[in-house]
């Protein structure tokens, strides 16, 4: 280890940081004798960067040389930026030494494409294989599968990595062709299918042979860039919803487009990355995964874009006032989940607590229900005055989106201090 590695680390982390995914969840593996580390099923964030994003894994590229010229990517070959390549030992050392100091949960390994997808993929596989077999690393490994890589290599990668992922990046094939002429949907979806096959096959084998090897036990994830093309939230969420139908897809990440190559006129000029839209998409994603919403309830042909002003659940509630008010003490779990201001935890607590006694607004507040929102959509035995139906959805929206200015009490005198020179 020496100073040159420090330089390389800087360059390669810089190149890798636009990948959003950093989850270390999905695999539970206890420590083993003679091996380094363990994996906690729920994932642990060991630090948070200044932008508030979780740092769970050492997110790094093996190399940032790339033969592709994708318009949205900082590492495109026509960009003039410092390039570097880590050797296998350097990368392995970094991972293990960071891990032993409790800096990280494991490794997130990605790479620019050099020579050919298979050549690159082979080198990535070698790193994770070394890490697992020679250095006995038992922590979490997330590996990018290179678009266009062959099934054999994906199959080998799955034996060592906990999670594999292929990024879709652009939710629409036509737009992808404009921005990344060297890529197509086939090269992205083929590795996704290989991963899925591998996981399902291994699950099947493990039913018969207890010691059959596990294949990418934490499944796969993918990422889409938001705001680089004209695609609507409807297109994006429909694609996500279709992906979640597949058995191994655990997460779809949304990455607000950051204009890294502002000279390219195929891309929109943005002052600020679309952070609010990104947040709304994540909220909608949660509704799909944990709140039993169908994608067409959130966005459809009449409402192709998510409401930036209010969250998708509230937006749905305001469009469907006939469902409300919901009786907290009677409604079933699925309906409770649909009330704005009630999350999965509160809904579960309500369901178990109301067996003992009827719940009132005071108890709901203590349980953690956001009454500010929920009050317009519920009845409990004492509270039934001003629901969304009496107030009309427009008024509820107005009340809930009012900007809170600092209230000045006009009875309060202000004392004018004179500057003493």
């Amino acid at each position: 280890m020496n100073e040159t590695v420090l330089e390389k680390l800087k360059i390669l982390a810089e190149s890798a940081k636009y990948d959003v995914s950093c989850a270390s969840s999905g695999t539970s593996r206890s420590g083993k004798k003679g091996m380094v580390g363990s994996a906690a099923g729920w994932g642990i964030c060991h630090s948070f960067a200044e932008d508030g994003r979780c740092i769970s894994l050492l997110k790094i590229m093996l190399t940032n040389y790339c033969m592709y010229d994708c318009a949205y990517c900082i590492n495109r070959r026509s960009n003039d930026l410092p390039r570097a390549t880590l050797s296998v030992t350097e990368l392995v050392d970094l991972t293990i030494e960071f891990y032993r100091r409790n800096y990280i949960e494991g490794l997130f390994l990605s790479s620019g494409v050099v020579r050919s997808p298979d050549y690159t993929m082979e080198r990535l596989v070698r790193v994770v294989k070394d890490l697992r077999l020679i250095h006995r690393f038992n922590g979490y490994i997330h590996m990018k599968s290179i678009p266009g890589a062959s099934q054999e290599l994906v199959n080998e990668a799955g034996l060592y990595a906990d999670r594999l992922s292929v990024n879709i990046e652009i939710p629409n094939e036509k737009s992808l062709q404009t921005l990344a002429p060297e890529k197509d949907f086939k090269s992205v979806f083929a590795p996704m299918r290989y991963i899925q096959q591998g996981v399902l096959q291994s699950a099947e084998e493990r039913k018969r042979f207890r010691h059959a090897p596990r294949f990418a036990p934490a499944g796969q994830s993918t990422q889409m860039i938001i705001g680089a093309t004209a695609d609507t939230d409807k297109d994006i969420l429909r694609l996500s919803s279709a992906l979640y139908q597949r058995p191994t897809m655990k997460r779809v990440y949304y990455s607000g487009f950051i204009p890294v190559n502002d000279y390219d006129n195929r891309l929109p000029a943005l002052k600020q990355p679309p952070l609010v839209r990104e947040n709304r998409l994540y909220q909608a994603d949660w509704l799909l995964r944990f709140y039993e919403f169908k994608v067409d309830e959130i966005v459809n042909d009449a409402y192709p874009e998510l409401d930036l002003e209010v969250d998708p659940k509230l937006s749905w509630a305001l469009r469907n006032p006939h469902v409300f008010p919901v009786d907290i003490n009677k409604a079933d779990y699925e309906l409770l989940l649909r009330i704005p201001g009630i999350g999965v935890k509160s809904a579960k607590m309500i369901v178990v607590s109301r067996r003992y006694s009827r719940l009132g607004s005071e108890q709901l507040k203590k349980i953690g229900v956001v009454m500010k929102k929920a009050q317009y959509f519920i009845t409990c035995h004492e509270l039934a005055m001003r629901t969304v139906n009496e107030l009309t959805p427009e008024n509820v929206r107005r009340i809930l989106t009012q900007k809170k200015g600092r209230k000045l009490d006009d009875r309060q005198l202000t004392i004018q201090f004179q500057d003493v020179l």
Partner: protein
Amino acid sequence: MIAFIYDKTFEGLLTAVFDAYVRKSFPDVLLAEGEPLPLFCEETVTIYSDKKKADRVWKGLEKKVSKLSLSGLTVSWLSELPEVDMLLFRYIRKALDYSKSIELNFGDPDVLQISKVWKKVSNERLRIMQFLRFQKALDGTYFSAVEPIYNVLPLVLPYLNDRFGDQKWLIYDMRREYGYYYDLKETIEVRFEQKEEHLLSGFLNESLMDKDEKLFQQMWKEYFKTIAIKERINPKLHRQHMPARFWKYMTEKQ
């Protein structure tokens, strides 16, 4: 008002429950030896911790509430909050008195409060697991200083033992002045009469560091700086996820 005076141990608390049922009178306050009595105190009862009595109360509880909730009680105890003993006392009494299990009745203020304290302590445990940083010393021991608001070190041990089973480590609670040391075989509680510099500052002196330690610290700091996306800087979110009170001993925040 009835005050029970006990030794501020968990065993003592359970003994207090036992004695209260025997006496058929229940305390309004629980005090430690030497604490000032409340203004109107009709009666004080001194409780002598007794393992047998405590065990009987615990056995009784095992019949009434699930294992998970029982561990919730011990975890809440570790919060060391001033009111937590009385809260636990009320919870235990309710659990014993009702025929049905009370543990899911979140409409009850005590049950809800216990679940909140439990959550707070568990969160603190998680935070320590997230944010503790080891420094490698010359002799190969990894040293970490922490300052949790609740006494969560015992709860972090399973994680450390599982993950760092092939390295020697010492984790030290600066606030409570004790720690745990793992020597590749077993984990023991340690207290130090004479404190060396790193037990006071929380950082290893450079002369005590492993030869690559400085470099790895520097690398981690650089990595931490580089990985943030400038266009998205969000100090509020940063602090929300990683409260400033942990920064003191975190390598990347030095």
